[in-house]
């Protein structure tokens, strides 16, 4: 990664023009060619320097339901429960964390009812209680990460 790559990452976190040839507009802004910009972005994608490029949606405003859920699982049951939880397609990501509450996952569904159903299904299949912790208030969400 050189200075131009850094400039690309920082600039493209501020937004992206909506016009016929948006990469050409951004390239001019950066003082490089459109072709160079596209090549560099492709390389960044291959090297997994960027996770994605495109619209970032406001999940709640799409009308779906989304929540963070915690569980406290005994060490001996952890892998089995992880499998049972992950088998639910509503589970978007799931992390093990170093704590008594050792499993944390995000549930995303089209409706609130589906979210409640998924929570019930997880409790039934695992035999463990779930702690549903939906976002009650958003104070800050970082959209830029300067490199």
């Amino acid at each position, binding site marked *: 990664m050189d200075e131009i790559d850094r400039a690309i990452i920082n600039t493209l976190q501020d937004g992206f023009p909506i016009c016929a040839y948006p990469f050409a507009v951004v390239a001019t802004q950066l003082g490089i060619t459109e072709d160079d910009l*596209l090549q560099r972005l492709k390389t960044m994608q291959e090297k997994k320097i960027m996770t994605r490029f495109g*619209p970032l949606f406001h999940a709640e405003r799409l009308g779906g339901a989304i929540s963070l859920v915690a569980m406290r699982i005994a060490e001996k049951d952890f892998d089995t429960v992880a499998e049972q939880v992950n088998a639910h397609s509503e589970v978007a990501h*799931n992390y093990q964390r170093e704590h008594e509450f050792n499993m944390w996952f995000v549930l995303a569904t089209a409706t609130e009812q589906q979210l409640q159903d998924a929570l019930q299904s997880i409790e039934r299949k695992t035999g463990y209680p779930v702690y549903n*912790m*939906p976002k009650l208030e958003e104070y800050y969400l*970082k959209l830029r*990460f300067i490199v």
Partner: protein
Amino acid sequence: MTSAASMADIDNIDHALIIASQAGLPLTPDPYKYLAEKLDISASEVMQRLQAMQERGIIRRIGLVPNHYTLGYTHNGMSVWDVPDERIHILGPKLGTLPFVSHCYRRPRYLPDWPYNLFAMVHGRSRAETDAQVAEILQLLGDEVRAYDVLYSTRILKKTGLRLTNNKG
């Protein structure tokens, strides 16, 4: 938190546009034309609809999402704080001003097991760096903190990302 009204604002074409673009835009000179061809509408309609969704806040922004891990930010800690409910609306935005906090939300408590109502994710290149960040938050919140903890991730068990599906349920 979710409302039927906001869903009603998204018509079928918007919905199809979201499905077609949520995995990302193609890295080609005319990415909106690609979406237009996929949806069988004009490129100018794609652009108008994206613009409108951006103005309505359905799209937070269009752009690049860097990979924290590849860029060296391998340590993420979920810091959780028990602060007075009547002060949280002042304290939450304060944490958001810190450069290393990526998101900051209020979530419900489950007393007595889970007393924390304020969540702030911190990112650093080492455990020492994230520990220092948590210390900075502690200093910022001062006497308002009744209890706190930091939960470091030890394993990713699943990561598929959020995806809107065609099934509206």
